């Protein structure tokens, strides 16, 4: 009992000490770095910016409400004056707040990741099952795997512009650009891990399937897929981490909405608050990345029979 309390205390106190030491070192170092935008922000400045960013978000929402309200009133007046008039509603055109950018980034990364998973898992399974396919695809995968998102981005932008030229787009082009770039970069770890998982299935389990004469589709569904679930999830967790990193870079470079754009805008803005706002964004980016991984781990725990790989 006492031992138990001691270990819980240890688990709580040691990270806390680490955190305090980090904050002390940070504020000490920060006060000694002078940039052209003023002193490097310390913990206090970042904390202030967090609340400032939230206040701005709320203020922007109030403005939006007022904007909509004005439109509704104006439309009502025009309809009263001229019954044939069909009222139009325009979306609020004010700037996106920090919170909006977070949500945009999360939506983009989820869509990009899901699209990649939809391609990667079936592809990985087919590659894992067939030696011929493996030999055919392996060089391509090996070459595309290390490509930086920044190299893909111009290509993706041009291709999207060329192919997605509708006057009334369902989703903005910038969203497609970031999403496809994310997909292209996080595809490969999933393909590789899935195919390795499938190729390394215990031969006895394959023999069970052969003795039962399971048809090909049932073999994949009943034996191959469950057996390689742990490896598929390992690939997915790697991919999601890459997806999040790639997304921030892509948004920054392409000026697509999202957290990356927020960082870039603040950098260009160059006010005395900019560095602390960027640092606040850095913490948020890191924290969301951590939450994404934890979320994936929870899904893995729920779905995978192999609890030992899920706890890692």
């Amino acid at each position, binding site marked *: 009992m006492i031992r138990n309390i001691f270990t819980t205390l240890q688990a709580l106190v040691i990270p806390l000490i680490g955190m305090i030491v980090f904050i002390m070192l940070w504020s000490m170092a920060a006060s000694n770095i002078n940039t052209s935008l003023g002193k490097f922000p310390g913990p206090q400045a970042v904390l202030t910016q967090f609340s400032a960013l939230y206040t701005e978000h709320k203020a922007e929402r109030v403005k939006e409400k007022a904007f909509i309200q004005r439109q509704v009133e104006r439309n009502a007046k025009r309809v009263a004056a001229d019954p044939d008039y069909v009222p139009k509603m325009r979306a609020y055109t004010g700037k996106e707040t920090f919170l909006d950018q977070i949500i945009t980034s999360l939506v983009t990364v989820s869509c990009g990741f899901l699209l990649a998973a939809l391609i990667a898992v079936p592809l990985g399974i087919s590659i894992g099952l067939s030696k011929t396919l493996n030999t055919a695809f392996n060089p391509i995968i090996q070459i595309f795997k290390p490509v930086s998102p920044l190299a893909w981005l111009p290509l993706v932008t041009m291709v999207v512009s060329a192919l997605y030229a509708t006057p009334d787009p369902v989703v903005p082009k910038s969203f497609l650009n970031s999403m496809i770039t994310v997909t292209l970069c996080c595809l490969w770890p999933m393909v590789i891990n899935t195919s390795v998982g499938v190729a390394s299935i*215990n031969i*006895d*389990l394959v*023999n*069970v399937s*052969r*003795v*039962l*004469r*399971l048809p090909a589709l*049932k073999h994949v569904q*009943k*034996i191959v897929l*469950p*057996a390689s*679930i742990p490896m598929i999830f390992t690939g997915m967790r790697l991919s999601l981490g890459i997806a999040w990193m790639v997304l921030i870079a892509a948004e920054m470079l392409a000026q697509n909405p999202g957290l990356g754009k927020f960082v870039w805008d603040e950098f260009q803005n160059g006010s005395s608050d900019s560095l602390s706002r960027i640092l606040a964004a850095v913490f948020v980016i890191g924290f969301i990345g951590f939450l994404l991984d934890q979320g994936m781990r929870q899904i893995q725990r729920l779905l995978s*029979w*192999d609890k030992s790989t899920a706890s890692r």
Partner: protein
Amino acid sequence: MNEILNISGVVMDFPTPKGPFTALNNINLKIAEGEFVSLIGHSGCGKSTVLNIVAGLHQATNGGVILNGKEVSEPGPERAVVFQNHSLLPWLTAYQNVELAVKQVFKNTKSKVEMQAWIKHNLNLVHMDHAMHKKPDELSGGMKQRVGIARALAMQPEILLMDEPFGALDALTRAHMQDTLMEIQNELRNTVIMITHDVDEAVLLSDRIVMMTNGPAATIGEILEINLARPRDRIALAEDTTYTKLRAAVLSFLYEKQRKIEPIAEHAKKKSEMKASNSAAA
């Protein structure tokens, strides 16, 4: 006696970088319906290869296997296999593991209710009804192998192939499993081929013991009829002279005629002789 299985002229070559390696040479064996046959031999002699050829998991280079008048060309549930390390699907419970087999084999012949009853009946046979909703991770080695046997029996095979089914178990569990297997055999009279390393196990369970010579190019050395009355009791047999003689015959085949390891005394003598000649040369 009704012949059910005929292995004739089976040769097995494995390709290696240095040319084909002949693992098995001219294996001929006929097995009657309801017969329990053990394959015994030193490790590496190709016992498992014989079983895999009968199962259809391997294709013989020459010769072939005929089961009930049909040539074996691919694996199938009429030749159910009990694998050495149980090979249960770890993400399914014991019940679901058997269910996978039953659903596949009886999908057109049994109704849902009949299937459920059949799965439970087979788990009952191996005394696993109390833990049928547990996953393999939660079962002991012996229990996993029981489920493996239940899965094979549930396929209602024409012949049951067992590849060292109790090899990974401790001695007490193994004895217990052997008793269960004899009990099931008393009831079902399946045709069985079992691979084993264990002389006692072979004599206790079999109607015939097929002893294989050492590889490469292993073949059948001797076949021993075990004409002990059934049901057999391991304690009574321990004092039985026929049992002791049969056991001695297998031992003599394995350790005198097909000796693989030279006795320690001889080995030591050779070594000292070599030392002596070496020092003399120096």
